[in-house]
């Protein structure tokens, strides 16, 4: 049973990638196949999640695969966003057909990208998790310069180099922890299994564990877009084709954060949670500051969204350091962020199509030209700004509450201030796009086509999340919290 579930989770993107390799002739078919099969892996993830939400045993297949509540939750997010991206990626839209080369490349790398992320989530082996996350860099970097512009190539190079070096540091951390574990003289071959490590964590040496965690935090933090090593993110996310940006911003960052959380759980046991928490607090605040302060002066709307991702990652990181309630809030926050941000990026792709310009000043009067897109985009921005009835409203309140409860009133007040700045900046920027006179020659009017309907799904889910969290999700998250903070 478990095997089927894991297969169902991992196979669709992998097969799609293979098809894209072999069926070079008709990429459109591949696209259809990809879009049609991704829901399967979503369904598998959902099945796993439901089972774990009911308090069931983790899904384990051999030494390699192990999904507990935390992984299941993230698997759902990853497969869900991947499904959305696959459905809206190039090759399906008859109105704006894309060159077949692009379609092939996109389907190949995007599927691989999704696959590697799912592997990183589904594996129980921290070494393999590292390998998979490193692989996400490789697979996504090639897709960024889908249309070869100087900017996109540079962005991809930055992403590749910084990402790889950073992730290498993470590997250093992994090795350090592993070395430390080896010194305890346990069975080395299962050493990097999360469960083993966690059980043996009490035997680890605190100082080494601390050392390792610093490396891990910087390393995976680079991928998670935490300050100050977030620098590759704005370029990469803004230059990438929108479906890819949606996946990167929506879930890749969460996957990297997930890696940090995994290790945190171990180091907490070894070196006490006070240490990890304070590091996360520092990094989180810095990240929120960088993200929210940058928003106002951005000139491209995709960069705007990218910096908002940074801000939200920082917020989640902040929440992770605030005890069980904070962790719950952070996970909820990441859920909402995945929905809102992926939708926003996909919508920004539509805006780009309509206006042919990525600048905010170049896309005024959106309400007049493309009402549906405009309304959805605005809802996405407001969701990201933390307004009800969207889910991020609840999670932000929870984070603030947790911050005070955890005894950090000053830091929390700083976060509140930064949240205000972020909201104001987003507001000003989105107003620049929604209102004003549309430039002459821009197509006016828009009908409620399939993409619009697809894109309104995440919004509906966000509202659902914000008004009444479905009990299964609540249980799942509570179990996930137990994984992080037993």
């Amino acid at each position, binding site marked *: 049973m478990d095997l089927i579930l894991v297969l169902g989770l991992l196979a669709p993107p992998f097969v799609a990638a293979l098809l894209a390799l072999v069926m070079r002739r008709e990429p459109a078919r591949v696209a259809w196949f990809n879009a049609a099969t991704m829901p399967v892996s979503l369904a598998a993830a959902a099945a796993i999640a439901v089972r774990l939400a009911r308090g069931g045993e983790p899904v384990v297949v051999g030494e390699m695969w192990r999904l507990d509540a935390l992984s299941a939750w993230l698997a759902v997010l990853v497969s869900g966003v991947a499904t959305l991206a696959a459905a809206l990626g190039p090759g399906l839209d008859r109105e704006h057909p894309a060159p077949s080369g692009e379609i092939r490349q996109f389907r190949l790398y995007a599927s691989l990208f999704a696959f590697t992320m799912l592997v990183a989530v589904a594996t129980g082996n921290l070494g393999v998790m590292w390998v998979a996350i490193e692989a996400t860099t490789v697979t996504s970097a090639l897709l960024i310069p889908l249309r070869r512009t100087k900017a996109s190539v*540079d962005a991809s*190079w*930055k992403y590749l180099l*910084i990402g790889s*070096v950073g992730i290498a*540091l993470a590997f250093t951390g992994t090795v350090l922890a592993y070395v430390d574990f080896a010194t305890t003289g346990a069975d080395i071959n299962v050493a990097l299994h999360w469960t083993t490590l966690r059980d043996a964590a009490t035997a680890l040496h605190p100082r080494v564990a601390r050392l390792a965690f*610093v490396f891990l*935090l*910087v390393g995976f*933090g680079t991928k998670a877009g935490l300050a*100050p*090593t977030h*620098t590759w993110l*704005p*370029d990469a996310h803004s230059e990438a084709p929108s479906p890819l940006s949606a996946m990167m911003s929506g879930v890749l960052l969460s996957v990297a954060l997930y890696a940090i959380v995994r290790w945190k759980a171990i180091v907490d046991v070894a070196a006490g949670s*006070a*240490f990890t928490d*304070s*590091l996360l607090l*520092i*990094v989180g605040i810095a990240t929120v500051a*960088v993200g929210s*302060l*940058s*928003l*106002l*002066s951005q000139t491209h709307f995709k960069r705007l969204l990218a910096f908002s991702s940074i801000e939200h990652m920082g917020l989640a990181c902040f929440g992770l350091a605030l005890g069980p309630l904070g962790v*719950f*809030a952070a996970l909820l926050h990441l859920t909402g962020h995945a929905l809102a941000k992926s939708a926003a990026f996909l919508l920004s792709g539509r805006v780009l199509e309509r206006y042919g310009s990525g600048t905010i000043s170049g896309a005024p009067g959106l309400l007049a030209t493309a*009402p549906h897109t405009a*309304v959805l985009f605005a809802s996405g921005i*407001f969701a990201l700004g933390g*307004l*009800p*009835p969207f889910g991020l*409203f*609840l999670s932000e*309140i*929870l984070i*603030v*509450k947790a911050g*005070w*409860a955890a005894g950090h009133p000053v830091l*929390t*007040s700083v976060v*509140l201030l930064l*949240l*205000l700045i972020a*909201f*104001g*900046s987003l*507001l*000003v920027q989105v*107003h620049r796009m929604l*209102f*004003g006179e549309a430039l002459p020659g821009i197509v006016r009017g828009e009908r409620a086509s399939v993409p619009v309907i697809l894109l309104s799904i995440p919004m509906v889910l966000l509202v659902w999340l914000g*008004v*009444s*969290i479905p009990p299964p999700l*609540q249980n799942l998250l509570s179990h996930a919290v137990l994984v992080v903070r037993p």
Partner: protein
Amino acid sequence: MTFSLLFDTMIAAFAVGAVAAMVLPLGALMRRLALTAAAIGSAAALALGVNVLRAGAIWTGRWDNLLQPLGGVSLRLDSLGAFFLVIVGFTGVPASLYAIGYLRHLDGHLRSRTTHAVFNMFLASMCLVPCADNVATFLFAWEMMALSSYLLVVSDPEQHDASSAGIWYAAMTHAGFLALLAAFVILAQGGSWEFSALHRAGATLTPAARGAVFLLMAAAFGSKAGLVPLHVWLPRAHPAAPSHASALMSAAMVNLGVYGLARVVFDLLPPGPPWWGGLLLAVGVITALTGVLYSVAETHLKRVLAYSTVENLGLVFIGLGFALLMRGYGYGPLASMGLVAALLHALNHAVFKNLLFLAAGSVVHGTHGASMEAFGGLIKRMPMTAVLSLVGALALAGLPPINGFPSEWLTFQLLVAGAQHTAPALAIVLPLALAGVALVAGLAAVSGVRLFGITFLALPRSPGARDAHESAGIMIAAMAIPAVTCVVLGVAPTLVIPQLSRIASDLGQPAGPLSEGLALSVPLVGSRLWPAVITLLMVGTGLAAAVAVRLAGRARSVRIDAAWNCGRIIQSPRSEYTAAAFAEPLKRVFTGFYRPRQEVTVDVHPASRYFVRAIRLRADLTPWMEQMLYEPLLRATQAASNRMRQIHSGSIHFYLALLPAALLALLLIARWIP
């Protein structure tokens, strides 16, 4: 239980309205259904509030399956909440009915969907705010209210300044929300977020923390109620919204700020030090003066009304602040008097401001103009609107026999009684407040004359005004509801006094009787107001005089002829007094406040500079509050943001260098952490 039934009806009606607006085909049917639903919902809210008030009961309800992580939705309607629910419901009914006629021009537009749906959402959230019984519910309803009203503000693309107004509004209201959140978090001290629990938690709070909570709450609710200097969004946002929405924002929403603060300081928090009241009182006086001074000088019709809202909320807060002050010094009866005065004025203001904004909507609708300078002579084209506006203008001027007067009178009595019955140290400050209120009353009268006279009397000053048209019947009918109420409450304010006294005693301020029969009476200063008698006397004399003139005048000739205009043959509207001209003397008197800026450009004939072709005068007021308080903040943020932008230079080497830098830095930090 009938309460629950009413509540469910209310929510259901709003939901139906919103859904109808979203799904029904565009057109008249959708408009009628959606807005009728809104009216029904408001009526239900009104009924619920009235029943709770009359029965003196408390209605509670829970929805545990909503907002679970924050402790579910819990509802509780006591007398205070019911009173404000009544205000919302009572202003909601006319606004909804009015909108049926007012928004006809939206039929077929896509945005009519959002406009009608959001309007229902707005009403629903406003009805939920006074019912909320825990922080989660309150914050959710509060922010929904903010969001929906913001959407209404920006809903009209023809309004060119709607966008900036929306930004001001949303940014400030979000700031208020965050302050609110912080205050609640401090108050809860990590405990439960039920109001009952907060009530208990408040007792264990340190005085400093209490002060912090109070200040945060005062800032948050005060900004919603338009307290100076947090009022700057109000005169921008209220006029930008479509009139049926501004009527609700100015009449209902701002009062929910009053509700919030009253709930906190009289219910959740334990009695605080007197400086709380002192602060509110001072701010209230300043607010009232600022508001009335701007409303006298402003020429944009709806902005005049918005500033008058600021003024009246200032008066309400004078009552609240006075009550707090007196409670702080232990003068129980005075405190309850203050509370009653505040609530009464809140109600009165809600009613007449509702009327005035709807009337302003008709004027704007009928003339397609927004500035009072472009109106004039409308009384002949829009007779009904004119009559109703006259009632509103009298109320706004705080004159008998309309409802603006009794609450103002009570406020006067309040301050006199306070000055008389308290220790000199405290009493010495009250005369200043009294003088302030008196000046406010006087200037309000000027504002009332100006509002009605310049808009409706004399000759039309623009083509739009020349062929203005009267509004549809349903709009007139809708406006008639608050208009009649204005008169009723003006003649018999005592109808509501007992309820208000009970609210005061429910809030721990048992009140002495403030009414005898149909007369307000303040035993503390042995003064009474019996509006019915005075009205009777006035009307009687007036009618008698009219009859006398009629009888005596049968033989007399009445000639209709051109007005004497200092020898000019034809009378042209150009020689009329305009809104700006009317305010000129006051502008001169209060130059220090207005800081007027003028530039005169004289366009002379090329041949000789003695032949003047045209003289242009541009005059406006310096918005010094914005310049002093807000622009520095905005500049600072912008600067920080630009700095950030420079940091992200794009140099890969710098980016890479950050990696080892971060690593070493964290390693260092890691050493310090125990």
